[in-house]
Structures are given as structure tokens and as C-alpha cells.
């Protein structure tokens, strides 16, 4: 039987992969993938602690988090398609008008 710490380690590894993707990749779609991986690591932690404390609140929070992540993907992909129409490119360093 696996314990709480195993799930936490898996979630730390997933967060690290997501941060690596955000730092290294310049493709906007791949950066969105990284965000999804980080959000899923957070959900995994919520469910693991919910199971550990035998409390339904963690599962409710995970359900809310999944729904919010779906909305975020929809808006992110919409922005990527607009940027692609404007620049014919999905490389984030080419998005000049989005610079601060």
C-alpha cells in the first residue's frame, strides 16, 4: 500500500516538469501544457490529503479546481488563436504588442 509521501513526491516531480516547461519552452501551446501539468499536480495533492484526513472538502476543492482549469484552457487557447492570426506565429518572443 502506498503512503501519502509517495503521492507528494509524484506531485513535486510533476510541478518540476511544469516549471521546466515554462522556463525553457517558447511555444505558447507548450507553455499551456506546462500550466496544465502544474494544475494537475495541485489536484493530486488535494485528493491525497483529502484521503489522508478522510475529509470530503478536498474532493470538492479538486472539482472546483478542475472546472476553473477547463475555463482557463478555453481562454488561453482563444488568446493563442488571436495571436496566431495577428503574428502568424505561436512563439511567445514574437508577440511584440504583449510586451510590457
Amino acid at each position, binding site marked *: 500500500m502506498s*503512503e*501519502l509521501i509517495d503521492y507528494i513526491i509524484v506531485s513535486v516531480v510533476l510541478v518540476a*516538469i511544469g516549471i521546466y516547461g515554462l522556463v*525553457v519552452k517558447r511555444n505558447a501551446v507548450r507553455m499551456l*501544457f506546462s500550466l496544465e501539468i502544474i494544475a494537475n499536480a495541485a489536484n493530486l495533492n488535494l485528493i491525497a490529503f483529502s484521503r489522508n484526513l478522510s475529509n470530503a472538502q478536498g474532493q470538492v476543492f479538486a472539482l*472546483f479546481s478542475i472546472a476553473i482549469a477547463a475555463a482557463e484552457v478555453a481562454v488561453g*487557447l482563444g488568446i493563442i488563436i488571436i495571436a496566431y492570426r495577428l503574428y502568424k506565429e*505561436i512563439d511567445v518572443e514574437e508577440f511584440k504588442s504583449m510586451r510590457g
Partner: protein
Amino acid sequence: MADPVFIGVAVLTVSSAIVSLESRELIYGAIALAISMMGIAGFFLLLDSPFVAMFQIAVYVGAVAVLVIFTVMLVRTQALFSTKEDKGRKSAGIILMIIFIASIGAVFLVSGLNSQTFDNSKSQAIDFTAIGQQMLTYYSPALIALALTLAGAVIGALALARREEIEQKNE
């Protein structure tokens, strides 16, 4: 020690997460991301929360993965091969990742969480009537806010997609 099913799901999830970022073609990356989400749903099943696992499969594998694949197909194919990242940044990213895993993992391993075990005698699997009750009583304001957020996101995405036509009409 961890059981073989857990190790199998962990290897599947982590390796397909890496493939989703490192694959040559973006469409294979999207499929690998869907497989990684399936692995997370497998973890949820192992953690006795089948309702959240089904929700994860329906939302992530069913909706998000399909949406990403549609977007990838809408974007021109040459733009998808933009692997223009320089070697220095990539190795720096790998070193950052390893330092992150080592430091945060060491902190968790020496902390009190290491001795926590799942108490199977006390904790039964939470059934979904409890989740539904919590959602419709204590968390009902959050549920309404979530519904409004989703509606706003859908309207915002539609407005973003239509903006160009409106601008052309105004000119």
C-alpha cells in the same frame, strides 16, 4: 513500500508529461498530455475518489485534450516545429528542475509527512453523496461563482474569437 500499480501509474504519468513537452510534433504532445491526465485520474482511483476521477476524465481527456488538438490543427504546421530554444537555456532549465526536486523532496522526506499513513480502518472511502451535499449546502456560493466564471470564460473566448470581424466592420 509503494505497490506495483502505483509505480506503474507514476511512471506513465511522469513519462508522458515529459513527452508532452519534448515531443517533436505538437499533436503527439497533446496526445501525451491526455495520457498524463489519464494517469492522474488513475491516481484518483487509487485514492478512493472515483467521482473526481470520472470528472477528471470527462473534463481533461474529453474536453481539454480535444480542444487542444483542434487548436493545434488550426495553427499552421510549420509554426509547430518551433524548437528554437537555445541549448544553454535548456540545460539551465534541467538543472533548475533537478535542484527543485532535490530541495523540495528533501524537505518533504525529513518532515512529519513522511510518517503519515493512510488509516484504512478509520477512513472509509468518501461517497459522492457527501460531496454533493457539501457542494449544494456549504459551498453553494462557490458553486454559483464557479458557474458565473465559466459563463464569463465562454463569453470571453467567443468575444476574443470574433474581435477581428468587428474591427473589420468598424473600419
